[in-house]
């Protein structure tokens, strides 16, 4: 298992290096001059030149890339062009917020998808399955911003149960933290829960038609026992992949949801940085999200290997 983990980890290094080049070049290709945006409408040409020099924008692209990469491996992503604060510090501040939101959302999505997916598969082609399918498809098609605004309208404006926006850290006030994260987590969780329901339904349905399941039935086990003891374990492998992809996606930035609920997370950091051409922040955030996606898919692979020994030895 350790050998598998190490091999998997080492193989991702070249990919990550390519990712750094892509991130760097893409950010550089963004149109517009950061100096112009920072100094605003009133900038004099002399001030612009001064700023470009102090930002290192007058150096060659390769020089800029190498010094950025050298910093990045030491987790130093430079300083924000907007307010001079350290990008690493900003990321350290925002990442836990999005991490917590993502985990909360994934919990909600599991609470939705596990029972719904299993029920749907066990009762396939009955009215229960059809209703659940309809709900799942609605969940997938409902845009985040719409669901978010709907929840705010209902729970914050009409019922006044939950504040419409804001964030309090878990350490400072756990109750308020969970309360404030509830609506955004539901907004995110519904969509991914709906996707996962469909995944679980199809993989479990397929497993339930396998020979060994029929054998288990023949031995006289109840449908519930067959599903929970035999079929579900196998059906969970593709489900795990989908789960990993969803989580990775959320970590990469629950941008719209964070915007609607004014949560100072990773996604908003990125959006604001794009709007203000804060290049060091964009590069840092994109790189860290890429690494996060790598990490999640690495953990998913380890999860596979634990569930299915064949994967380790292939």
């Amino acid at each position, binding site marked *: 298992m350790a050998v598998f983990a190490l091999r998997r980890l080492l193989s991702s290094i070249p990919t990550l290096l390519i990712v750094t080049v892509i991130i760097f070049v893409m950010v550089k290709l963004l*149109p*517009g*001059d*950061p100096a*112009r*945006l*920072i*100094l*605003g*409408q*009133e*900038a*004099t*040409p002399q*001030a612009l030149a*001064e*700023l470009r020099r*102090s930002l290192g924008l007058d150096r060659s692209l390769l020089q800029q890339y190498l010094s950025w990469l050298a910093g990045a491996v030491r987790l130093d992503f430079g300083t924000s062009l*907007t*307010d*001079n*604060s350290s990008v690493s510090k*900003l990321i350290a*501040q*925002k990442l836990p917020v999005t991490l917590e939101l993502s985990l909360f959302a994934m919990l909600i999505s599991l609470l939705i998808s596990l029972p719904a997916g299993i029920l749907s598969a066990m009762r396939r082609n009955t009215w229960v399955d059809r209703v659940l399918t309809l709900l799942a498809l609605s969940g997938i098609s409902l845009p985040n911003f719409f669901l978010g*605004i709907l929840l*705010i*309208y209902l729970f*914050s*404006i009409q019922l*006044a*149960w*939950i*504040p*419409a*926006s*804001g*964030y309090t850290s878990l350490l400072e*006030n756990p*109750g*308020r933290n*969970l*309360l404030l994260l509830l609506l955004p987590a539901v907004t995110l969780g519904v969509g991914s829960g709906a996707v996962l329901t469909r995944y679980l339904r199809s993989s479990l349905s397929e497993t339930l038609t396998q020979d060994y399941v029929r054998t288990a039935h023949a031995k006289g086990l109840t449908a519930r026992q067959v599903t929970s003891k035999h079929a579900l374990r196998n059906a969970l492998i593709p489900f795990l992949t989908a789960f990993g992809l969803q989580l990775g996606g959320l970590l990469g930035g629950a941008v719209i949801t964070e*915007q*609607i609920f*004014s*949560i*100072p997370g990773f996604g*908003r*950091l990125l959006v*604001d940085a794009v*709007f*203000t*051409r804060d290049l060091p922040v964009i590069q840092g955030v994109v790189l860290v999200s890429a690494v996060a996606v790598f990490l999640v898919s690495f953990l998913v692979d380890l999860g596979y290997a634990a569930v299915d020994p064949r994967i380790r030895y292939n």
Partner: protein
Amino acid sequence: MRKSQFLMAFLSAACLSAASASAQTLTVGLDADPPKLDPALSTALVDRQVMNQIFDKLVDLDVNLKVVPALATSWKVTNGGLTYTFKLKSGVKFTDGTVLDAAAVKYGLDRNRTLEGSARKNEMSSIKEVKVIDAQTIQLNLSQSYGPLLAVLTDRAGMIVSPTAAKKAGADFQNNPVGSGPFTFVSRVRQDNITLNANKSYWGGAPKIDKLIYRPFTDGDVRYANLLSGAVQAITPIDPKDISKLEQNAKFSVLNYPGIGFQGVWFNVTRAPFNNKNFRQAVAATIDREAIAKSIFYGTVTPAAGPFPPGTPAASSAITVQKPNIALAKQKLGGKPLTFTLLTTPGSVTTQLAQVYQAMFAQAGITAKIEQVEFGTLLDRADKQDYDALMLGWSGRPDPDGNIYDFFVTGGTNNQAGYSNKAVDSLLAKARAQTAMTARAATYNVALSTIISDTPYTWVYFQRNLVASVKGLTGLKPIPDGIIRFKDVDLK
């Protein structure tokens, strides 16, 4: 059952704690996260909302745009407009305990005009020297007479920072600002909040609210939802479409008052097709400014005749809003086809506006293609004069000079058209060197009539300041610069 009981208890406890914490706290929703809380470095309008509470200025503005005393109790302009002598209020301290005397004011003004990367250099360039006369007297010596100086000092250029704190924090002062204003900076979490506490020993009396929290909501609907739900007690600006809903809601008040900025369209006069004056005039003649104000902005903007909004010192009744005249536009085109690209930024209002322009141009047979780029790119292309026409406005300055000089003087920093006219240059220079406002206003308007006829820019509307708040909020002053002063604001 147990689960739902727990949930209800949890929800009500959380709501209670939210209510008790906000007893003396005022939370204000802004449309952007203020980037730089340093008067020297700030370039965004939204910064000023926060900095006005933290820093005192030498002088301030009142609701009629008159310059009134602040840190300076009185001032004298002598030597043909070359010497400004200010008497300072005594006994003032910065919130870190440093004494605010003439030496501190000199440090603050010098920092604003010389700090590397300072965005104030241009507007303070006429100041040759800041001289301490005695502990309560400061003198500004100018290299050339500059009428707008007092008005400039009512904004960031006149904000005085604590020398002790500024020296100690260095480049990080923007994240730890210290001034002598009615509120002190406590903390900021980027994209979440900026928290200020009342300065209980403020020289002008302690503010009525204890804590002031600013929160950014870039989306207008989200800003509006937060006001409705009680998460914030005031928001600025309000989307025009929400105004009437808020006005009809008994729980809220709306403050809708004139601003000092303008919006319109630039024409690149350095290349075809708009190096042809007739083409510029033709386009300007197709625009129905009244219709735009009514249909896109629900009457929350005023049609514009020039750069000086009604009620500001240089506004002149002799210059009237241009009425749409398709026949005139066609005559100016002289049967020649006109096709060009209109550069603009994305956003629902700008997109709508660009499409309305497009339709108005089409009435005279003019074809405009809309190209949308983000703001930094728009400015960049404007600088390089890499465009045909573009939509760009200005937040405005209290002195007329700030709304005209840099826009139309040859090589001006805001002269996006590449416009150059010797007669206009000398009139603009003459106006800023004059000291009496009536004389200056007259000179600006002579220059303006030439500019309007040359049409490097066409003004379309003046934006207004729109603030919504809960009914219990009192003491908001409609100062046209759009910055809310919270010192006398009370929340019942």
